[in-house]
């Protein structure tokens, strides 16, 4: 039986049946093992509905579900918000298009398209795998939007609500498909009609010649529509007094068209429509390669997509959910665990422990006391808090940053395009040649001179070069994508090749954001002591305690034994508790040393009725743990001080090698929003030369980049959080480093998966080589142009010569560009 086989397998490998994570075999259902209750629930839902095909299509297809928190979708109870998500809605049905980042395999497609089997309220579900979008039609009487979200969430497919849904790109590509279709049709027919001309040695009978010529004109007219992009772009360029690469192309295309039209109508020749159509088809195919988009990625996110969609308002003692836009100054709101603070506000009630890591880069959550201002963008960790809003959402500190001019700058201005540079000089060169040709021919033979000039303009069209750009860069973009480095468009490659300085953000970029290195310095701890410390630190909300707790083993076998119900936390100092008749203290140096108040401790410990607070004199003021430069946490058990835990940022793997490699070619800098505790480590890592700056606000970072740019230093900014957003945008190239490419990233030019940071030197070298390849391709196409120019100037450019020369030059340059990018990608181990 197939089921038994599967069971056996999961038993041996001890992998979660649902998601494939290692598991200890404690949680089981139907002889299948799961790593967590989330996976088990998801499995049971599917099992109940006979949907276990899910597990047959792929092994362990499930997503690792996050902590179950159904309150998450409570905001959908608000009708206004719920209906905003629907693309169509009437009394009975509603249709929604949901973005689900966790879609990843065949099983996902199968399950999500079979949603109606789980809940009959779903009428239809269709998935677009590449865009990771699910189109659902629901019957509102059976399932609400909120229930639909919860259903998907419980299956491990959490929908993410994107605020700015723009589907501009897809209509652009559609247009391009149309154009390619039409161009292909015209090209095929024109070639068919032109062949007799090539083959017949004595020339065609006149009647056919005329007929074929007129048909060619007919087929050439739609091609003008296909090439319209080049005319528009060159017109725009000329209007801005800027000669771009499209100008000579548009010029060449129109000259060929008119010259051929004249030749056919006047009966003087066969025209050049064959090369004309081939050229346009090539250009369009190149464009298609260039428009490679990462549909499921978003490069243009701003703070709004980071903020929550709705907030919980407290009105007359009752909670009410309202859309974010309706939030006003003076409103009282409640923020639950892991929710984002939507607006600058004052803490009114509860223990605020705000994680600002995404906003300021400070990796340690900040504790706030009642009455303190909490800035928007922080994330509350721990129990719910009540806040009073003091500034509108649009005026918060974060939003202010976004209104910085760096964000309003147009994209084009920072492009110093090699192609456009060529376009300019090329056009000037062509006109010089035209002028010289005219000077030579006009005194001898005016008519021949005129046709020579036109031939020069035809041949001069830098189409081979124009085609090589999308082929070379499009190919590189694909290679980058394979290395989990996704760039917005091909222009980024060129800018990447031009970089002088690399600026790193620290937290989350070069350090692991959710991992720290914990080292215990002092006497070695026994296993039992480790259990004790773990049991105590688990109870604390302080981030350091959590880090320590995570680093220690917890006793699985006898949980009860190490339960500590007798503990007390001293804000900013430490935690003390009695477990197994032992007094354990964990905290700052002063806290641990000074508070061993009474020498006859063991007696106290044995009498458990005693309140722990008696042991420690609270009146003594101790320095706040967080203000400690060295992140050391001291430990004592009973009266013995055992030593301290040293907590350090953990740097990403291979970071030293990456830095060493980059050091030789680029100047480096580190801008950290954090305190300077890591200064020494960074210095040894980066050497003495680079700027290492601490306590940098988002504005500071932006200013630093600006300052460098004013000195004509081109910066590559590598960051991850909102606090880098300004700098990422301002820099010549901004790359955001993320753990999961679908998670939030501020607007940037490229997204790099954090585990691939080690590929950075290779990526940069490869980008540089790309520019070299382009220059070589340009030289090639220039040689072809020169050869054609010889025929043109001497007045003997026949349609046949043009029809051979143009495709040959294009194809050879394309081949060269593609093969050489592949060669260098292999050399740098990118493929």
């Amino acid at each position, binding site marked *: 039986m197939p089921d038994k086989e599967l069971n056996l397998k999961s038993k041996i490998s001890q992998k979660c049946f649902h998601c494939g994570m290692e598991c200890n075999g404690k949680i089981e259902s139907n002889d299948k093992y799961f790593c967590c209750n989330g996976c088990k629930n998801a499995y049971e839902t599917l099992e109940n509905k006979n949907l276990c095909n899910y597990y047959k299509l792929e092994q362990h297809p499930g997503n690792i579900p996050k902590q179950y928190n159904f309150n998450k979708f409570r905001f959908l109870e608000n009708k206004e918000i719920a209906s905003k998500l629907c693309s169509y809605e009437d009394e009975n049905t509603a249709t929604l298009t949901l973005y689900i980042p966790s879609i990843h395999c065949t099983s996902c497609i199968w399950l999500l398209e079979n949603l109606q089997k789980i809940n009959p309220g779903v009428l239809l579900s269709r998935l677009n795998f590449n865009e990771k979008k699910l189109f659902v039609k629901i019957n509102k009487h059976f399932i609400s939007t909120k229930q639909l979200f919860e259903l998907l969430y419980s299956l491990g497919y959490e929908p993410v609500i994107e605020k700015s849904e723009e589907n501009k790109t897809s209509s652009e590509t559609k247009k391009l498909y149309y154009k390619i*279709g*039409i161009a292909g*049709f015209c090209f095929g027919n024109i070639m068919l009609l032109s062949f007799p001309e090539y083959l017949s040695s004595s020339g065609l009978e006149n009647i056919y010649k005329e007929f074929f010529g007129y048909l060619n004109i007919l087929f050439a007219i739609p091609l003008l529509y296909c090439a319209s992009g080049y005319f528009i772009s060159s017109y725009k360029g000329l209007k801005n007094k800027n000669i771009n690469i499209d100008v000579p192309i548009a010029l060449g295309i129109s000259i060929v068209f008119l010259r051929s039209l004249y030749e056919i109508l006047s009966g003087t020749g066969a025209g050049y429509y064959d090369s004309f159509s081939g050229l346009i088809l090539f250009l369009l195919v190149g464009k298609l390669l260039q428009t490679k988009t990462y549909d499921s990625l978003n490069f243009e996110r701003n703070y709004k997509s980071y903020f929550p969609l709705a907030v919980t308002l407290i009105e007359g003692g009752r909670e009410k959910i309202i859309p974010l836009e309706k939030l006003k100054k003076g409103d009282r709101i409640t923020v639950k665990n892991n929710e984002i603070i939507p607006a600058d506000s004052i803490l009114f009630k509860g223990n605020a422990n705000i994680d600002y890591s995404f906003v300021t880069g400070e990796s340690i959550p900040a504790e706030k006391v009642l009455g303190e201002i909490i800035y928007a963008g922080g994330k509350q960790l721990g129990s719910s808090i009540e806040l009073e809003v003091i500034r509108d959402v649009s005026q918060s500190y974060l939003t202010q940053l976004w209104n910085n001019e760096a964000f309003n700058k147009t994209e084009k201005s920072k492009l110093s395009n090699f192609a456009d540079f060529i376009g300019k000089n090329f056009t000037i060169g062509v006109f010089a040649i035209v002028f010289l040709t005219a000077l030579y021919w006009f005194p001898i033979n005016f008519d021949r001179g005129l046709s020579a000039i036109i031939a020069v303009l035809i041949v001069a069209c830098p189409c081979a070069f124009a085609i090589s750009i999308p082929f070379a860069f499009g190919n590189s973009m694909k290679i980058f994508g394979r290395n989990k480095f996704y760039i917005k468009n091909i222009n980024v490659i060129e800018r990447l090749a031009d970089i002088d300085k690399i600026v790193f953000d620290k937290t989350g970029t070069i350090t692991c954001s959710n991992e720290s290195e914990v080292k215990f310095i002092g006497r070695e701890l026994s296993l039992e002591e480790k259990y004790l410390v773990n049991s105590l630190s688990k109870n604390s909300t302080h981030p350091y305690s959590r880090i320590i707790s995570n680093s220690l083993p917890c006793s699985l076998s006898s949980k009860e034994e190490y339960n500590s119900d007798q503990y007390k936390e001293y804000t900013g100092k430490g935690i003390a508790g009695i477990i197994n008749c032992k007094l354990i203290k964990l905290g700052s140096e002063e806290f641990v040393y000074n508070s061993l108040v009474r020498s006859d401790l063991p007696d106290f410990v044995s009498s458990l009725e005693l309140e722990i607070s008696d042991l420690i004199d609270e009146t003594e003021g101790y320095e706040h743990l967080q203000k400690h430069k060295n992140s050391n946490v001291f430990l004592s058990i009973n009266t013995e001080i055992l030593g301290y835990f040293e907590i350090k940022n953990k740097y990403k793997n291979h970071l030293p090698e990456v830095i060493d490699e980059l050091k030789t070619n680029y100047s480096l800098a580190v801008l950290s929003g954090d305190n300077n505790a890591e200064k020494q480590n960074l210095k040894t890592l980066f050497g003495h030369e680079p700027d290492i700056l601490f306590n940098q606000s988002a504005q500071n970072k932006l200013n630093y980049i600006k300052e460098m740019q004013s000195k004509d230093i081109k910066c590559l900014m590598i960051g991850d959080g909102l606090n880098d957003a300004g700098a990422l945008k301002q820099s010549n190239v901004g790359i955001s480093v993320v753990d999961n490419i679908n998670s939030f990233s501020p607007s940037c030019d490229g997204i790099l998966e954090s585990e691939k940071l080690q590929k950075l030197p290779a990526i940069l070298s490869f980008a540089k080589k790309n520019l070299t390849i382009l220059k070589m391709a340009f030289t090639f196409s220039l040689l072809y142009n020169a050869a054609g120019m010889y025929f043109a100037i001497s007045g003997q450019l026949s349609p046949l010569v043009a029809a051979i020369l143009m495709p040959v030059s294009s194809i050879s340059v394309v081949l060269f560009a593609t093969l050489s990018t592949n060669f260098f990608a292999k050399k740098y181990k990118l493929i």
Partner: protein
Amino acid sequence: MSVIFVLIFFSVLVAAGFLIAFIWSVKSGQYNDRYTPSVRMLFEDSSEEELNKKLYNKKETSV
């Protein structure tokens, strides 16, 4: 030789037919998603039970 005119007329007609078919396919969204349909067609419409039956049958016959 005037048959060539007729031939060309028909060849263009056929080609135009394909062009229209292509444009229609783009318009109807066939190029919007070039991956999912290729997977979707492999799924069986049959329910889990039937699938299991089939699998058992296969097993039994093979043994």
